[in-house]
């Protein structure tokens, strides 16, 4: 392989993880926009979605369903249940708080992420699992301009593009989407317009949970799934959200691609084991210099209140 | 005898996006007087205050205090140079007692640094005693001694205002900025307030006050500056300002001019 092939290889690897980080970031942004809460448990949605899909898939295959429909059904079920979990979390822990302080919310969602993580380790154990490849197998590779990528990479990037598109249309053209944007802009005014703010908040948790679950399923065949992986996704997703400016989901896509590429190319300079440290280093760098992100304005970095 | 200029505002401007909240404003504040800044809503009074106290950054122009430029300095540095302020909505330290709030105001006047405090050096104990005494004196002056050990959040609103006064004075400022101190006070409380402000002036402190209560302003001010839509409209003594047709127009509309 010559240099340009290697660069291309890193490029696609970067796109792959970058799209997942972008989806996590969008999950953060949706909840943050409607509630001002940063849901530290966002990363856990990915893992629980993937684990549920893995279990359902094994079950369905066991009772005789052929591979492809089993996988599809498993993923749908997993997303469904994760969405329900997201709604339950909002209902049980967030909805009834009166004027909570930022510290309180942060700590609650951290506690939730810990409980979820430990819960997953009890139910599924500490082994690493993986969802079957959506098409092809572990060994299949497609050659694009000299780089070998897995068909799963195409699935991941494709699913992420699809989700971004769907969300864009949802928020721009549907009534519910606009209602959520209204809540994001000014909750009091939105409720005075007759928008059911409480429902919108619950909805935002549900959408973020669903996004997380889908992303988790998509990346599972390649990155494998283990109960501990949630916090890494959460921190990197948050980094991407910050790069784009908290709340700005379109910028998050750009940010995701950027972080993915940086992380991927960093392997050529630093040992792979430090890859996570690179992303966090970028987070700290951005927070130190421009917390409002590359695309945000200074005044907007003032945080929303719940 | 010409009075000394304490504060010199020169061509001050600040815009928010396209809106010029403060537009090329210049005026002076002489030492030892009570000067009021008035103007209809949106005139830029609070923005002006925030520019002076350092909470907002200046776009252009300069602020000179005691002959030295303070434009662009951080708020705590400006406080150290001799300007303290009270706020439109009281910003007391709710979970601290009234006495502790006022002692916090004494912070500038003491020099016990972090390390000495940790080590509990005797000089820090002495400074504590001095600050406590000074704060108690202030509380007595404001007739708040019986509230001394009460948490600030438990006090009635009018008393909280007074505590904020006492706290601001504890810092020993030369210039005191009062942002709508009469807001939410009834007639009697406003009269008390007027007496307090005049007694503060008597102790040699210069006062710059933003206020909507015209009777208070006309009663106690030595000099008035009128702002409208970010610009300086006019300035002068209370009598001059009252008679000025532009001022009447700006407040009440064309027909009353």
């Amino acid at each position, binding site marked *: 392989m010559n240099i340009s092939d290697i660069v291309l290889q890193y490029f696609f690897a970067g796109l792959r993880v970058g799209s997942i980080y972008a989806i996590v970031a969008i999950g953060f942004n949706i909840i943050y926009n409607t509630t001002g809460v940063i849901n530290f448990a966002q990363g856990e949605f990915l893992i629980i979605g993937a684990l549920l899909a893995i279990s359902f898939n094994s079950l369905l295959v066991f009772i005789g369903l052929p591979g492809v429909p089993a996988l599809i059904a498993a993923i749908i079920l997993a997303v469904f249940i994760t969405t329900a979990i997201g709604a339950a979390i909002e209902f049980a822990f967030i909805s009834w708080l009166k004027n909570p302080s930022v510290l309180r919310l942060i700590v609650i969602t*951290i506690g939730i992420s810990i409980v979820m993580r430990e819960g997953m380790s009890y139910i599924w154990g500490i082994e690493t699992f993986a969802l079957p490849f959506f098409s092809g197998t572990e060994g299949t590779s497609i050659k694009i301009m000299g780089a070998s990528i897995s068909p799963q990479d195409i699935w991941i990037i494709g699913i992420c593009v699809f989700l971004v598109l769907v969300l864009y249309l949802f928020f721009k053209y549907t009534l519910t989407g606009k209602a959520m944007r209204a809540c994001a802009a000014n909750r009091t005014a939105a409720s005075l317009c007759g928008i059911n703010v409480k429902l919108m908040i619950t909805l935002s948790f549900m959408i973020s949970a669903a996004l997380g679950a889908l992303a988790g399923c998509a990346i599972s065949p390649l990155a494998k799934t283990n109960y501990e992986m949630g916090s890494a996704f959460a921190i990197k997703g948050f980094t991407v959200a910050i790069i784009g400016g908290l709340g700005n989901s379109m910028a998050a896509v750009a940010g995701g691609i950027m972080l993915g590429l940086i992380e991927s190319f960093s392997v050529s300079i630093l040992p792979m084991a430090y890859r996570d440290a690179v992303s966090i280093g970028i987070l700290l760098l951005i927070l130190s210099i421009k917390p409002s992100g590359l695309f945000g304005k200074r005044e907007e970095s003032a945080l929303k209140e719940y | 005898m010409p009075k000394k200029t304490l504060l010199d505002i020169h061509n001050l401007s600040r815009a928010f996006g396209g809106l010029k909240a403060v537009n090329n404003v210049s005026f002076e504040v002489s030492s030892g007087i009570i000067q009021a800044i008035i103007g209809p809503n949106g005139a830029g009074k609070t923005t002006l205050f925030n520019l002076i106290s350092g909470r907002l950054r200046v776009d252009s122009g300069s602020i000179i205090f005691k002959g030295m430029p303070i434009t662009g300095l951080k708020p705590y540095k400006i406080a150290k140079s001799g300007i303290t302020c009270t*706020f439109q909505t009281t910003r007391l330290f709710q979970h*601290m007692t009234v006495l502790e709030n006022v002692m916090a105001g004494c912070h500038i006047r003491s020099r016990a*640094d972090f390390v000495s405090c940790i080590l*509990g050096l005797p000089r820090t104990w002495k400074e504590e005693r001095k600050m406590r005494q000074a704060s108690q004196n202030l509380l007595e002056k404001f007739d708040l001694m019986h509230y001394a050990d009460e948490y600030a959040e438990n006090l009635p609103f009018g008393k909280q205002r007074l505590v904020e006064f006492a706290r601001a004075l504890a810092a020993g400022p030369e210039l005191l900025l009062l942002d709508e101190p009469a807001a939410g006070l009834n007639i009697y409380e406003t009269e008390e307030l007027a007496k307090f402000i005049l007694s503060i002036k008597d102790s040699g402190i210069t006062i710059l006050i933003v206020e909507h209560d015209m009777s208070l302003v006309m009663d106690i001010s030595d000099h008035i500056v009128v702002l409208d839509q970010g610009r300086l409209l006019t300035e002068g003594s209370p009598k001059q300002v009252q008679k000025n047709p532009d001022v009447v127009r700006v407040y009440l509309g064309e027909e009353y001019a």
Partner: protein
Amino acid sequence: MDHKRYYPIAVLFCIVIVMQLLLAVTGTSFFLKELTQAAYYTIVVIGLCLLIGYAGQISLGHAGFFAIGGYTSAVLTTFDFSIFSSSPFIRFLHTIGFIIQREDLYGKQLLTFSPMVAFILAVLFSALAAIAIGIPVIRLHGHYLAMATLGFGVIIKAIIDATTVLGAHDPITSVPGFSLFFGLEVSSKIPLRIPNYYISWGVVIIALVICINLIHSRAGRALRSIHGNEVAANSLGINTTRYKLYTFILSAVFAAIAGVFLTHYNGSIGPSVMKSVRYVAIVAVGGMANLWGCVLMSVVLTFLSLRGVFGSFDDIVFGAILIAMMLFAPAGLLNLTRLKLWREKILLMIRKYAKKDSA
């Protein structure tokens, strides 16, 4: 001179002594080990209580400073520097006694740093890290600060896991004892168990004296002002950024000292010390600004955890505690206002009872 403020420390001192005697009398002196370890963890909690409760700054990565302190001293006292013995710098350090020759478990001759020097270097290094991280981060608020400190904690863990010198995923073992003055040594040797118990609580008491000095001083009031309303604090001439930074560094130094001492006491340190959230949970339960509440809760919870009372549910217990506290008692269980309310309720009941009696 208001000496009354030190009375609770005297009370703690007596409790510590009574506890040891009690355990000796009931033949349960083996509990001393967990009580000693709990004491060191409490030092971290005390520093964090100062930062979160008094200065109002959240830090979700404080275990990182504990790790920096512990790992630095562990590496400096276990790494065999004799491979560098040709370097003049190393030989110079050997001559002035910073590097010593000692024997390890298997009789092999090693050149390592003396524990005392390693301790000083570890604390210095931790303070430098606190400054490096603190300066950019302390200006942040709310979620940004939380994420930045969380990120710091994760970076430290990632670095530990990835570096072989630090043992990667395995703990560094055979950390030697740490000789203090008067022939006292911090190590896990059984005959030294009682002196070590008193050493650990001695350090706790020193930490508490520092905290109480700070709280009752002008600087402490400045911190509480910052927590109360940062804008107002600034307007009173308080350089809020600097005070927040100082507190951050102080709490980091506390954590580092605890890390060094505990590493020498346990004789080892591993990646499992990175449990920042646990410290926050304890501060939350103890009452954010209630120093004594935090001490009490830290000792109780850490002791129970170390004795294995929570079994494999250890992490989830602290996570659940965190959630429960934040949902139902955000100011902590032993929050002073709540305690005052309870005291008044009890006094009221007593009075009613007394009236009934006399009637």
